[in-house]
């Protein structure tokens, strides 16, 4: 086969022309009311939040694996979405997935991607306890705890945080030295993407933020203040939704009583059970929770519990 440089150049030029024409066909302005600069900034910020969250969730899913049983996943989504509808940010979209790991933990990624481990699910006794846990994560998302934490980081801090490698056991640790630098989504790449899609890109280095966020969540966790706030708000949402007010307390008590490593690891990323318990008691008192009658949802929960899969990891 011969190489025909002129023919190749013509074909490439035609492709470029076609691309330009496609771009020219796209409307210069989005359809709908024109946004002010401030409104556009807010919109872009939300888009960026979703990008970071999606990336982070993807990494966590890849890291832990995901439960695919629709009976269980659908149930968790049903409960979570229901609780979220009683949150302070019900207009957001919340998506729930179950991680294939027996450790007790849950992750609230920016943008509404909430991941709960199989271990955390298994520790719940009824639907009210599950609703409290999910309410806690919904609060993290609604209050943008993780996203704000990442935005506050300076660029260098973000890069450093992204470099930290958290591994999932010796098999994955053995691969750590082969990692290459975290490639930034380049400004020229973003411009190209913007040109091709007509969408504006964000200012945060999405990938570094996602990696840093994942490292933060699986490493030292968020600040204690925001964890307490999430506890408080999560309980409020669950009560508003009609669940048993003390469900979170019984859940935390159960975890505290267990000595297994998979449970104790939760305290690496969260305040101590005792502290959390104390603060939730204070919140319930202020709400006169003793006078509130809520549902435990035990019957439905125990029906779904039969489908909980066995997980070998963690």
């Amino acid at each position, binding site marked *: *086969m011969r*190489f025909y440089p002129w023919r190749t150049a013509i074909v490439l030029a035609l492709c470029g022309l076609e691309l330009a024409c496609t771009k020219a066909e796209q409307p210069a302005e989005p359809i709908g009311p024109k946004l002010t600069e401030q409104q556009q900034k807010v919109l872009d910020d939300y888009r960026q939040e979703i990008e970071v969250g999606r990336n982070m969730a993807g990494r966590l899913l890849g890291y832990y694996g995901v439960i695919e049983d629709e009976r269980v996943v659908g149930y968790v989504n049903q409960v979570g979405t229901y609780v979220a509808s009683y949150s302070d940010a019900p207009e957001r979209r919340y998506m729930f997935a179950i991680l294939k790991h027996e450790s007790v933990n849950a992750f609230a990624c920016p943008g509404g991607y909430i991941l709960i481990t199989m271990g955390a699910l298994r520790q719940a006794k009824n639907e009210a306890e599950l609703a409290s846990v999910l309410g806690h994560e919904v609060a993290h998302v609604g209050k943008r705890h993780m996203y704000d934490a990442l935005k506050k980081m300076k660029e260098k801090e973000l890069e450093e945080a992204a470099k930290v490698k958290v591994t999932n056991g010796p098999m994955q640790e*053995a*691969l750590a030295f082969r*990692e290459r630098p975290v*490639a*930034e989504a380049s400004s020229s790449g973003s411009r190209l993407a913007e040109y091709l899609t007509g969408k504006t890109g964000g200012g945060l280095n999405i*990938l570094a933020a996602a990696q840093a966020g994942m490292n933060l969540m699986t490493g030292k966790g968020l600040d204690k203040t925001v964890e307490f706030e999430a506890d408080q708000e999560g309980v409020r949402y669950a009560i508003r939704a009609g669940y048993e007010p003390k469900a979170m307390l019984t859940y935390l008590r159960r975890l505290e009583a267990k000595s297994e490593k998979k449970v104790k690891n939760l305290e690496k990323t969260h305040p101590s059970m005792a502290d959390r318990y104390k603060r939730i008691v204070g919140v319930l008192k202020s709400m006169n929770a003793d006078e509130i009658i809520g549902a435990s949802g035990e019957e439905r929960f125990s029906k779904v519990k039969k489908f909980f899969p066995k997980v070998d990891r963690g």
Partner: protein
Amino acid sequence: MTCGVFKLLSAGLRLSSTVLLVYAPLVETARADQFHYNNVLVGTRAVGMGGAFGGVADDASGLYYNPGGLAFALSNDIQGSANAFYSKTTTYKQTLGTTDFDEKSSGSLTPFFGGLQKLDRYVEGMSVAFGVFYVDGDLKDQDTTIEHKEIGSTTIDRYHRTTNARAGTYFAGAAVGYRPLPNLGFGFGLTYHNADELVQEFQFAKQSVTLAGANSTTVPGWRTLSSNVRQHLAVYGVQPVFGVQTALPLGLTAGLTLKKTLIATQSLESTSENNITTTTDAQNTNGASTTIKSPVANQVDIAETKSKKPVGSGPFEGRLGLAWFANTRLLLALDIMYIAGVSDADLSVDPAKVRAPYAKQPVTNFALGSEFFVTPSLPLRLGVFTNNDARPKVATGVRDTAAGQTCANLDYYKKYCAQPDHIDYYGESLFIAWVQPNSQISAGVTMQQGTGKAQKLGDDKVQAVKSKQYSFAFSATHNL
């Protein structure tokens, strides 16, 4: 080729060296170059690193370099590469008198396409890969004409040679890698192998000669030689490959790969027609010169060769790879490759049954490569490597007609005449890539320079050979 020479010599016709060129097609014609093992490098990262990838091999190209490395893959990937353009020129110095003779080929080919899938979800530490790759490819379409050339005491009125050849060596297969321990991986692969070469060559030469006439006179004449050759080689087989790789302290890794080509079927079919005609002017009885072309000699040789074992058994190959992941930005690697010789190639392919054209000697090659991330998105890859010849070195004999040391003597011929080319190459590769979080594209150039010796004319004269080949290549990888 050599059979024709001996026949003509025994007929008493003293042939000039130029005549032997007619039979050159079977001396060293266009081949896929099964005698060099590093003609084409495969893999997005490996090609930039000169092929020094046996200690890394943690992507789809691990199928080729070391299946044990597949178990250390960081992510799923799919990759493809293409040599957008390659060109090769081999110059035989002062082959036709003082004139150099060039062999040229060019074209494009797709060295590698493959994918890797991690199976940690099912079996922790396991990965599978598939790949399709060309380790050699050549496309020749050459037309050479030389006119009015003096070569020694002979004048060549016209020499014309056209060569059309296409050749390729191709593999397709799959491999699995598994890490039973965090720092130790094993892998096994099986690939289908096919080497195919088709050569069609025509040569024509016309030289002025002086012939003995009546009454001790001499008569001017001319001789024409033509040769038409068609040769097709096809080899099919499988190549099992076994690899092991281990991670050592301080970011070092070591890998060992063993492979053996098992040939299922092979065939060579060769047909040649050679014609020598000697013609002279004749004068009419009135003394006026009239050009009447009277052939005084005409010889036709037709040769057909078929062989069911032209290349013999496939060689055994071993590769030792070492790599040092100095930090996230710098990777250095060294590979040493040993390919054993093949001694059971069919001797009958050579009509004179002197040396099997596809016999191979053991070869050792080296490759040294590096990958350096100038920025997190911009790695620069450099490599140097050898590409040595599996044919024996060309031996130079001292012709002594009085002592019978000429190509007409079989013992002398076996050692010093019509030997195949021997060209050793040294290569460099330089590639730059643009890495995005889930993909990368790379582009660069690979160059090889070779020196060696040849006996292009089929006699005992040795020509120096210089060869250059370069290819512009690009590749893309997407991580899934």
